[in-house]
């Protein structure tokens, strides 16, 4: 469903992604792991064009985009492409001037152009799914980080994306709040949502991922099932990384 070919991304003189090839099947949960600065977040942001790749192709659902240096992609194409994705951010990025419910409804009303009542019904269903019906009318500043992140997931789900992208969704959370967010993500994975998750939560990757991708210095070092990566890796760099996490 997603096919990335020879993807490069350069910031100024620094090449952050040095030719990524990756296939993601529909309904799979793919965890991207790797040391900080390895390019995993950049790869994720390339998938919804928050970063424009320097070179390469990305095929996602109905669209395929070919990137060439200095040739901008037309804006309407970017928007159409991006609308197939949903994103959950490390810092939640909820709209602070809107209640939890309004955050989820916003895209339905103003992007999908659905009527208000239908949007509200759908948004309430999604908030219930992430266990936050009772917080529907709270502003982001009035709820905990874990609750905010669950609203963030509901907001992304509302647009019915082909794929959900998670950018270190639990890294900014207090340890005791991580579980509630991971639980929602595991449920989504079980329901067959296609998800790409950049994470440091190795337990989550072990339990929920269909595929784990280890990235270092802008290249994919290794990819495979959680078992292959976590237990039978033959790569020195993967081993070093995993050992560092355990120590």
């Amino acid at each position, binding site marked *: 469903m997603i096919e990335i070919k020879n993807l490069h991304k350069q910031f100024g003189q620094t090449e952050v992604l040095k030719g990524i090839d990756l296939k993601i099947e529909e309904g799979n949960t793919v965890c991207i792991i790797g040391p900080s600065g390895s390019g995993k977040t950049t790869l994720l942001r390339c998938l919804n064009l*928050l970063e424009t790749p320097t070179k390469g192709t990305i095929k996602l659902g109905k669209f395929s985009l070919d990137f060439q240096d200095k040739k901008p992609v037309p804006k309407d194409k970017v928007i159409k492409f991006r609308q197939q994705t949903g994103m959950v951010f490390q810092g939640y990025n909820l709209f602070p001037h809107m209640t939890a419910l309004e955050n989820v409804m916003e895209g339905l009303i103003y992007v999908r152009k659905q009527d208000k009542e239908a949007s509200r019904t759908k948004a309430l269903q999604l908030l219930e799914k992430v266990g936050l019906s009772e917080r529907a009318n709270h*502003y982001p500043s009035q709820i905990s980080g874990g609750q905010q992140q669950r609203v963030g997931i509901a907001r992304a789900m509302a647009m019915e994306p082909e794929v959900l992208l998670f950018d270190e969704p639990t890294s900014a959370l207090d340890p005791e709040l991580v579980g509630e967010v991971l639980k929602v993500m595991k449920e989504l994975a079980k329901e067959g949502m296609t998800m790409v998750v950049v994470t440091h939560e190795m337990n989550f990757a072990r339990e929920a991922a269909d595929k784990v991708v280890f990235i270092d210095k802008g290249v994919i070092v290794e990819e495979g099932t959680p078992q292959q990566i976590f237990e039978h890796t033959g790569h020195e760099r993967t081993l070093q990384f995993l050992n560092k996490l355990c120590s």
Partner: protein
Amino acid sequence: MFADERMDRIVDIIVNSFFPMLKAGVAFTVPLTLVSFFLGLLLALLTALARISGIKLLDVIARFYVWVVRGTPLLVQLFIIFYGLPSIGITISPLPSAIIGFTLSVGAYNSEIIRAAILSISKGQWEAAYSIGMSYPQALKRIILPQATRVSVPPLANSFISLVKDTSLAATITVTEMFRVAQQITATTYEPLVLYCLAGFIYLIFSTVLSNAQGQMEKRLDRYVTG
């Protein structure tokens, strides 16, 4: 005896001038302020957007406009519009001249406030808006500007109150706003101290009412921050 007579005369003048001056304030000062501020804010928003658009030509035009208007006295601008332009065949009546002058001034000063407010909203808000499929104008209108508004209310209110007082400059291009009426009455009664103090007092009333309105507005816009 003489002092009493003088007092009576002054009280008479105050009583007889207060309402004509207040009337001029309500009929000219207030509308002049509101119209100029509203149009000026639109101009300020456009200027701010031009500055952050990343389009070189728009940025240069916007910078030039702000540079000229901020770098020259408002009084000089009003004189150019009202007394200067007729010599090249452009004659504008006093009130529209004043509105044009004040609008240009409000637009230039407040464009910087609005630009700073927009830039103060975190990049993550833009990204979140884009991530749910919004276009640039949608993100701006629905997500960024509502938050930027909250940030910019205190400095904008400051400039609004300045404008209330600046409208007295319109007297110099013959707009019969409040200060001009004070001048006219002074010319016949010769009590400048009394009348100009009275004018100041009425400006003070207007400013106070507006400051309170600003406080109310801030409280309303802050509702999502405290909690």
